[in-house]
């Protein structure tokens, strides 16, 4: 019985007791114990239980150590910041590492690990930002659904990323997929494959989990208000467990298809590699295009009239939550970008990245805001939020490799890209309540391509096409940025669209029409976000 239909007060509302036929008298106990049928049943039942318990213990004995066997590397390993290996014996045997490489792999840098952990916590805090932003831009009847999706999505992502997501993405394997570190087994003390900065393995795992969580939260943006929760769980599983790790492996994994990271002991052999510092492509373009696939597969919310048909974007119900959520995301981005240096030692790099992040966000917020003023003669809040978010998304790829001027230009353009992106999605009759596709997808594309234009060339890449300096390899660099980004965008869209269509075929993607009209909160979650009626206590309405 739905809480909302319970009535308060008095006996007159209680339904009448149903009168059952009287039960036959029980057989006396000794007679029951001697009954042959009962005895046979009892033996079968009891033996079955014993078999079940034995099977459970068998599984625990065999698979258990493999699942939980990996060490947490929390104790025993001495940490220091310089590479004096002879002073760092192995914790159990006291022996000293044989080679410098082996020593490096076990040397945990306390400062680098602390840095990565703090930034991982900031990135995780972006989940709170996403919850507020998405809920604020949606209608009151969709709020509980968004919040539950974000929370469950985070929980699911953590388990999947631990089990096999991290293995697919950062494990050593082939160009398409990694296949080591399943359940984080066999992990060394530090993750050295992206460059030995001495970050403790579990800290690196946490940092990457926070990124995966960000991507899978973005994808729900275009799907709010009408996605059945079972369908949501299934596509969340596929995004966090399959699409994000596998496509991410191509860009960030050791020996990935277009990755700048080589397999251990090898070199990068792909014809072109995609430089993506903190994930404009891997996290945002991917998330945005998966959201696009979902938005197209789902169709618009009921009653939605698009601008070209005389309607428009329905306003958000809580701009306070949305704006604070947006600014929380900006704050979290200070972990997202600077943390991707994976090293507290690269202080100049961290400073440059953080400054570029800020300037791009500021420029984008300003340009979107100013542009829309000339259109509607009002200073619009919603577009200034989406504007600075677009700037943050765009600078995520180039932040390490551009200078401040480049960051500002990238931001200015990103703000305009977001405005036109929102218009385009509306014109295509795709219902995107949060603007996720425009902010993450399109700004992510611009950000990735812009590295090929604005890279200074001083920090390990070729010089960007619009920058001063000798342009050796610049054209290839730009083509690589464009090509790599397109590969990921198309791959993400195609795989997500296929998965959504399959879920839709089994009628699990979209909720029923009455459910949607009643409100997905009541239909899927049984409770409204605002004014849940406390009447069942019998003492008043609120």
């Amino acid at each position: 019985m739905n809480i909302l239909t319970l009535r308060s007060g008095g006996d007159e509302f209680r339904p009448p007791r149903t009168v059952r036929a009287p039960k036959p008298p029980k057989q006396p106990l000794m007679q029951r114990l001697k009954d042959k049928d009962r005895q046979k049943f009892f033996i079968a039942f009891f033996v079955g239980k014993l078999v079940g318990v034995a099977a459970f213990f068998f599984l625990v004995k065999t698979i258990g150590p493999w699942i939980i066997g990996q060490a947490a590397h929390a104790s025993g390993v001495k940490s220091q910041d310089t590479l004096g290996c002879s002073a760092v014996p192995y914790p159990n045997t006291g022996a000293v590492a044989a080679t410098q490489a082996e020593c490096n792999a076990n040397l945990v840098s306390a400062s680098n690990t602390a840095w990565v952990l703090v930034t991982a916590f900031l990135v995780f805090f972006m989940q709170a930002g996403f919850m507020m932003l998405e809920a604020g831009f949606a209608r009151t009847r969709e709020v509980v659904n968004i919040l539950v999706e974000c929370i469950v999505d985070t929980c699911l992502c953590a388990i999947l990323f631990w089990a096999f997501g991290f293995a697919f993405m950062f494990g050593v394997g082939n160009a398409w997929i990694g296949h080591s570190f399943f359940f984080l087994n066999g992990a060394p003390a530090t993750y050295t494959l992206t460059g030995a900065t001495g970050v403790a393995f579990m800290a690196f795992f946490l940092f990457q989990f926070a990124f995966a969580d960000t991507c899978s939260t973005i994808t729900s943006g275009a799907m709010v208000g009408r996605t059945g929760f079972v369908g949501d769980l299934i596509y969340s599983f596929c995004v966090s467990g399959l699409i994000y790790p596998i496509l991410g492996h191509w860009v960030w994994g050791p020996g990935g298809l277009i990755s700048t990271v080589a397999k251990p002991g090898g070199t990068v052999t792909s014809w072109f590699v995609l430089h993506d510092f903190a994930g404009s492509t891997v996290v945002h373009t991917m998330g945005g295009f998966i959201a696009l696939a979902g938005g197209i597969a789902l169709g618009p919310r009921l009653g939605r009239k698009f601008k070209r048909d005389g309607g428009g974007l329905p306003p958000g119900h809580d701009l306070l939550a949305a704006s604070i959520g947006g600014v929380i995301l900006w704050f979290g981005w200070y972990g997202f970008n600077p943390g991707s240096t994976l090293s507290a030692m690269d202080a100049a790099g961290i400073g440059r990245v953080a400054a570029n992040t800020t300037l791009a966000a500021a420029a984008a917020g300003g340009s979107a805001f100013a542009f829309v003023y000339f259109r509607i003669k009002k200073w619009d809040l919603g577009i200034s939020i989406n504007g600075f978010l677009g700037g943050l998304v765009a600078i995520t790829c180039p932040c390490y490799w551009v200078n401040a001027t480049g960051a500002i230009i990238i931001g200015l353009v990103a703000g305009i890209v977001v405005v036109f992106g929102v218009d385009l999605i509306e014109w295509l009759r795709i219902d995107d309540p949060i603007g996720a596709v425009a902010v993450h997808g399109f700004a992510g594309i611009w950000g990735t391509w812009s590295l090929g234009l604005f890279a200074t060339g001083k920090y390990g890449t070729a010089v960007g096409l619009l920058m001063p300096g000798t342009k050796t390899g610049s054209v290839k660099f730009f083509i690589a940025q464009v090509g790599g980004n397109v590969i990921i965008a198309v791959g993400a869209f195609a795989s997500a669209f296929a998965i959504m269509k399959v879920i839709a075929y089994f009628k699990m993607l979209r909720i029923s029409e009455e459910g949607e009209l009643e409100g997905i909160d009541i239909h899927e979650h049984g409770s409204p976000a605002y004014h849940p009626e406390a009447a069942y206590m019998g003492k008043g309405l609120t």
Partner: protein
Amino acid sequence: MSLAMIVAIIKPHKLEEVKEALLANGVEGMTITEVRGFGRQRGKTENFRGSEYTIDFVPKLKVEVIVPDTDVDKIVSVVSEAAKTGKIGDGKVWSVGVDRLLRVRTGETGTDAI
């Protein structure tokens, strides 16, 4: 003596003026409700995320007071003067006959219950 209920739909920011005017004219109680509605000149343009959209139902306040029949004309004009701004959306005032009135605490009926 028979009673009437005067109902006025006013602009929300006019509430204080209407309340003071009613109190100054012998009315000792009133009820307000937040409502939405439109009249002949319907529609208002708002905007969200850079696009404009037209809303039909504009937020207003409904004020209800109960007065003796003889005071209806006076109170109607008092309310209408207090609520007027001269621009569209000022609202309407009307009166409805009341059959029965009772004060819950004391049980007084009719005009004594006003």
